[in-house]
């Protein structure tokens, strides 16, 4: 089976935020919740690099490990999803996540921070695929329809790649070889414990 991953080619990303906009629009993500964001390193200096970051759907996800109610699950495609019905809004997944992916509707933690929301790899949630109930809570389920995440599809420079890990690693490796440089597959060491030799 495919093991789904994200790869953002920092040398191609132009910080256009098309990925962010696509995600927000497709899943009707409320204001204040940032499933995907673009971070710029060394802004304004030579060698500035921008990276699009969202949930990386880690192998051995730390968010799932620390959740006190076990609301996370990993699908057959290795996508890490969670159930908003079980979530108690304790905030622990954010403390464990290396990428700051979990987002909460409330700022204070008295009682609950609200139901955690994060990038779903456009794969919805535990509700039945494609139903209104699933859309309301988690957004569109593109994966069930055989499509890839919209952020990667909308990327204007094809810097954000999504799909089977082997395939996108191969694409990235070829790019790096052809152009002669690459700043690395950002986040892969932390998320998947692997690097792409370039």
């Amino acid at each position, binding site marked *: 089976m495919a093991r789904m991953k994200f790869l953002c080619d*920092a*040398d191609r990303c132009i910080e256009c*935020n098309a990925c962010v906009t696509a995600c927000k629009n497709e899943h009707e993500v409320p204001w*204040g919740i*940032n499933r995907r*964001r*673009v*971070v*710029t*390193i*060394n*802004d304004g*200096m*030579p*060698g*500035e*690099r921008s*990276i699009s*970051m969202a949930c990386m759907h880690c192998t051995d996800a*730390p968010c799932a*490990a*620390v*959740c*006190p*109610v*076990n*609301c996370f699950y990993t699908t057959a495609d290795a996508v890490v999803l969670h159930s908003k*019905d*079980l*979530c*108690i*809004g*304790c*905030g*622990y997944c*954010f*403390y*464990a*996540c*290396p*990428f*700051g992916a979990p987002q909460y509707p409330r*700022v*204070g*933690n*008295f*009682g*609950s*921070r609200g139901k955690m929301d994060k990038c779903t790899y456009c794969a919805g949630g535990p509700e039945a695929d494609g139903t209104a109930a699933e859309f309301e809570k988690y957004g569109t389920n593109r994966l069930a329809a055989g499509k890839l995440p919209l952020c990667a599809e909308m990327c204007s420079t094809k810097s954000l790649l999504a799909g089977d890990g082997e395939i996108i690693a191969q694409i990235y490796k070829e790019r790096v070889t052809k152009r002669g*440089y690459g*700043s*690395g*597959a*950002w*986040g892969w*060491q*932390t998320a998947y414990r692997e*690097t792409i030799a370039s």
Partner: protein
Amino acid sequence: MARFVAQARFIIGALALALIIAIAAPASAQQPSAVNPTAASVKEQQLLNALGTGDAIHGRVTIPDQKSANLIHPAGRDWRQFHEVTLRWIAAIAILGMLVILVVFYLVRGQVKLESGYSGRRIVRFNAFERAVHWMTATCFIILGLTGLNITFGKPLLLPLIGEPAFAGWAQWAKYAHNYLSFPFAIGVFCIFLIWIVGNIPNRVDLEWTKRGGGIVGHDHPPAYRFNAGQKMIYWVVVIGGTLVAASGYLLMFPFYVTDIQGMQLAQTVHAIIAVLFVAVMLAHIYIGTIGMEGAFEAMGEGTVDENWAREHHPLWLEQEMARTGPNESQRQPMATPAE
């Protein structure tokens, strides 16, 4: 005239073209010499290598929530290890260990008996306000302790028994109880600090009491004032531990108001460790106040103790109380039947 204009236009056009080429040529000749932005670009590996423990790869975002500007924060990995593994071991050893010690102690030493028996005369030990404050703090502590332990042990121990939806419902209410009962608990700890600070300053008598085994190791009866050294220890554990657990807990309830993610991880670590040790110590306190010592529970249960009990365990306090109220003291309340 028209031909002249056409020729002039042609010449100007050609000159313009030549000018553009002239400007362009030196510009392309500059490229090999100056900045090579690709070489100067950051690579993930170099940034990861440069990270100290707890640091993050930090950039710039246009989102108002500035936490998003942290790109990768590997320290969460250590916190996860602590919370899932280390903390569970500490808690299990402390709490189960204390239970084992108490059971063994009870079997070996037995209950600390009132050797001279009940006299029937009572003396007030804790007034109504003191008892109310104690019970408010104690009840909150029990609920806070159980709901707090649920966060650490609920998933491995309780969840397999009742299933995910039921457990999540229970955990949701447990969190509400935990967060809101923290207020009466914190107020109670503060009141306890104020009302009993006078009797809980350590002194020489405590040293002697401890050296003589406190009456609990062996069958000695070392004298004590209102609170003996063991009780003073409990007092300070409650005040200091309670303050730390409340402070770290409120940091957790107001995440990122005061501190960054490293601070939050630290707050959770402190909160958890202090809390589980607190629970272990309180088990001993509950033991000695209930089954561990004959005649002890009444002190907090209804406020008075038997005079013989006071004479055996807190004679210096009894002396002070007698001196205060005089020989015809109104505090003495004869009881029809001796307390059980």
